[in-house]
């Protein structure tokens, strides 16, 4: 029996292994729909999904929109530039107005950590965190876990190296929580200035050089430098960063012979990852994108009424 005892998906921090596996298993099933001649099922007919994206995003917004449409839900997209927040309306007021139109799910992308949590306390619709500042991005972590499981057959016991701008990365945080819950050994690596304090308390091994983190890793996850999230430079320049922390074929050779290379996008080619690695046989970056749609279908299905324990009369 699928059960998902949560009304909202705000992060992976509080999800149990059972919750995570429920989403991953469902995601595997929904992935099959993309291969059908008619890539659509009627499951969420009559449900409304609002994508409230108040921070730039192409991949995640498109992915949620396609996911909603493949389930026959009506998807409405509101982006920062076109919304009334530009006219001075607060997030809560915008959301309460949207809520008054009775959507079933609101997906929120916001530059402020905790925005999705705030919203979930103020509106009736289920809230999915589509990324809140440097806090969490749960569907990205779920699709990453789905990709890892598909390529490696398991997650427990794998060594996963997350490299780059850890400090500003919600992807890193959500992945650390999810991967640790599922029993992976997580390593993080980056320049000291991009490693937040207290990381080791999350049960991860912290490295300030990339090479030891890569050694024997089964999964290498590269992160973009999120310059938009910090003012003063935290490292001398991108050329130097690339030289010391960029993933190239020589460094990748340190990882396990069958290691996979992942990146949540957007990629800065030649900065955190060499083009040869992106195009190489180990990269599963586009597979991550494909699985993103299936995972978001699973999340929408569970939150729009498909899975909760309230499902039993």
């Amino acid at each position, binding site marked *: *029996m699928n059960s998902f005892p949560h009304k909202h998906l705000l992060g992976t921090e509080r999800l149990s292994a059972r919750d995570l596996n429920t989403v991953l*298993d469902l995601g595997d099933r929904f992935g099959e729909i993309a291969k*059908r001649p008619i890539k*659509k*099922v*009627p499951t969420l007919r009559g449900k409304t999904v609002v994508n409230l994206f108040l921070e730039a995003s192409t991949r995640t917004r498109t992915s949620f929109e396609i996911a909603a449409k493949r389930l026959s839900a009506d998807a409405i997209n509101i982006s920062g530039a076109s919304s009334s927040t530009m006219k001075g309306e607060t997030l809560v007021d915008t959301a309460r107005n949207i809520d008054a139109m009775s959507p079933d799910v609101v997906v929120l992308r916001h530059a402020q950590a905790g925005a999705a949590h705030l919203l979930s306390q103020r509106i009736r619709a289920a809230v999915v965190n589509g990324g809140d500042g440097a806090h969490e991005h749960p569907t990205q972590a779920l699709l990453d876990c789905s990709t890892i499981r598909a390529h490696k057959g398991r997650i427990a016991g794998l060594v996963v190296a997350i490299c780059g701008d850890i400090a500003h990365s919600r992807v890193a945080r959500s992945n650390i929580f999810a991967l640790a819950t599922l029993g992976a050994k997580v390593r993080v690596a980056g320049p000291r200035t991009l490693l937040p304090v207290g990381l080791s308390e999350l049960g991860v091994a912290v490295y300030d050089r990339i090479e030891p983190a890569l050694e024997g890793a089964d999964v290498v996850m590269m992160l973009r430098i999120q310059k938009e999230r910090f003012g003063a430079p935290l490292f001398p320049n991108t050329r130097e960063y690339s030289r010391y922390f960029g993933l190239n074929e020589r460094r990748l050779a340190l990882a396990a012979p069958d290691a996979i290379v992942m990146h949540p996008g957007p990629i800065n080619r030649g900065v955190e990852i060499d083009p040869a690695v992106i195009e190489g046989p180990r990269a599963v970056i586009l597979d991550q994108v494909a699985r993103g749609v299936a995972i978001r279908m699973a999340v929408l299905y569970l939150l729009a009424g498909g899975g909760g324990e309230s499902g039993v009369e």
Partner: protein
Amino acid sequence: MSPRLPPPDADLLERREILDSNGMARALRRMTYELLERTGHGDDPIYLVGVRTGGAYLAARLARLIAEQGDVAPATLGAVDITLYRDDVFHGLPKPEIGPTDLPESIDRRKVVLVDDVLFTGRTIRAAMDVLADYGRPSVEMLAVLVDRGRRELPIQPDFVGVFVQTTQTESVRVMLTERGETDRIVLRERRT
């Protein structure tokens, strides 16, 4: 998956056996002959599509029985999962697992026979027909069920029936299959009052 999960076994009393394993084997053999008589001629093989999970096991059995006939083309075998097409998907019933839909060949211009274990309200079959419509356009769609227990809620009738049983609303029919680790038999059960 049937549209309603079987209720917890503890609530149900077995009233009587409708068919034992011999009776079930006979019913399936007779269905095979009828199927071949009505559809098996010509070069175009039958496409058996089982409705998960019980119907998928029965479709596989019918395919084996057809293969044993020797002089006819072997049937194509597929399966559909109707969970995402149910009309009661959010109506407060526990969620069953979603199984894969597996149609190895195109169903376009094929003679498709949907196979299910028990035909009751007809809602499962309506959902299965919706699934097929998303995959293509068979030249003809027919319906084979091992048990027809009546009490339809939709205008759907089977073309091939193993056994017909008149039932009441409080009764339920359970098809037990060796594929599920049980002994082949069909029983009529009633909710404990």
